[in-house]
């Protein structure tokens, strides 16, 4: 499961990363935390499936 949900899929990795950082520019720590939380919730809704979400939670635990 983890393999299928974490397999490389990003269209333009550098572009996405730059936009993620740009989105946080000028935000305080609290504003950034809130932004991230909203983004996680939006992305979770986009995924929808609980099994996939669980696999992503598990993958995020690995460091």
């Amino acid at each position, binding site marked *: 499961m983890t393999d299928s949900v974490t397999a490389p899929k990003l269209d333009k990795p550098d572009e996405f990363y730059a936009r993620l950082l740009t989105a946080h520019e000028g935000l305080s720590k609290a504003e950034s935390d*809130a932004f991230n*939380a*909203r983004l996680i*919730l*939006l992305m979770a*809704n986009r995924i929808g499936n609980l099994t996939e979400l669980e696999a992503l939670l598990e993958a995020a635990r690995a460091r």
Partner: protein
Amino acid sequence: MTKLFEAPLYPYKWSPDQDAPSPVRHPVVIIGAGPVGLATAIDLAQADVPVVVLDDNDKVSVGSRAICFSKRSLEIFDRLGCGDEMEDKGVVWNVGKVFFGDRQVYDFNLLPEEGHKRPAFINLQQYYCELFLVERIRALQAEGKPVEIRGGNKVANLTAYDDHTLVTVETPEGAYNLEADWLIACDGAGSPTRKMLDLDFVGRVFEDNFLIADVIMKADFPTERWFWFDPPFNKDQSALLHKQPDGVWRIDLQLGWDIDKEKEKKPENVILRLKDMLGPDVEFDLEWVSIYTFQCRRMEQFRHGRVIFAGDSAHQVSPFGARGANSGFQDADNLGWKLKLVLDGKAPERLLDSYAVEREMAADENILQSSRSTDFITPKSEISRIFRDAVLDLSEHFEFARPLVNSGRLSVPCIYDGSPLNGPDAAGLPARTRPGSPAVDAPFAEGWLLDRIGGDFLLLGLGAEVPAKMELDGIQITGLTIAANQINRDLKHRYLGEVGSAVYLIRPDQHVAARWTGFDETAVEQALAIALGKKELAA
């Protein structure tokens, strides 16, 4: 207005038991004439089981207290003969508004599923609920049913034996003893019975205080449920505004744990808070105010030999989701028929262990649900607060976030999955009516299906003929055949799905015991034995 809760409803009266030379033995004694004790008494009395209810008070409870009665409770009241009184007096609402900080983030219309006799819930002061239950007991007494409520009877001591309990009762005319084959403790969260028997009450998941006020609005105000997260008039806490009958509005202000109760309860302080909440132009009278403290926990076991606990004495949850009184009625519903069959010698005593199994499962579900609501309403850490606020911010703009907003998930009946009383299931039939589920209502023959179910075991045949009457193992089973041409869309959707015919064995508390796609008397007999606790389902 008349204060219903000031009039004695069941004043103390001398009972012949008080002069008996030796303690009089009763089959069932219930301690506590609150909603759960009264409902249990009605259920037993309707089934001709003699029952005595003891209460140290003589009135209905003061203030609105439990105000939200769920569809399942109304269905139970129907079976107890007082559903119409409750719904006729109650307030039905469908529109709610959610506020976050100083702004409204969204509103909603519940649009409940059609094809049910009762609405999803009603708002009704607890004292009305108790009044209608007492009136129902009076009506049963007039019919000669064996039920009495003894007001001014305070239980002072209990001695539990293997086959009965000795109860010492204090009255204004002195103390007396009586004996109970079965004792049912419905004496609330602080249960003196639990303490007298030195039993546990574990869990204490969290604790909180609520300021609850009943106010009478002097002008029109919409029939809506308003819920605030972190409002300016109650920083970092929640608030709820709810309509009740008689133009009374219920306001719940969460206060947190570490508070000065006496100061918070002072009317001048309450009025200041309410003015902040309602705005300077809304005129109101404060009718009642109280501080409600709750903890979230349950007894490890609801049955202790011949003593059985039901309602708040057995389990306590947060008020979010109205799971207190509503789950107590489900306790009563679950217990009544089992106790009758055991008393009649038609089922083994261990049938009552299934009461404990099923209702402990329900209590765990209620504690889980109300803990989740509490975690959302009162975030326990910085990060949970960040996510909670993110959900509320998103809910203003995006519909997807609204189901994440948790201001209480309204009480729905527990489905007893895995209960030892569940018999076989048949593949392909709808999941919502699987064994362990409460039968789902549907329109039927100018009326309602649930009005035809309950009190006795029932065999329901849909597109399959079942005998109109059967007696198996000394148990009467009523049959209800719904011919193929009588099966409407709701019945099909709720009981058949894509399958052509089905037979359901339904318990006296309207929960499904087993189901098949056709009638087979041997199969019914085996499922009945399982539902009576006489045998186990073969693997």
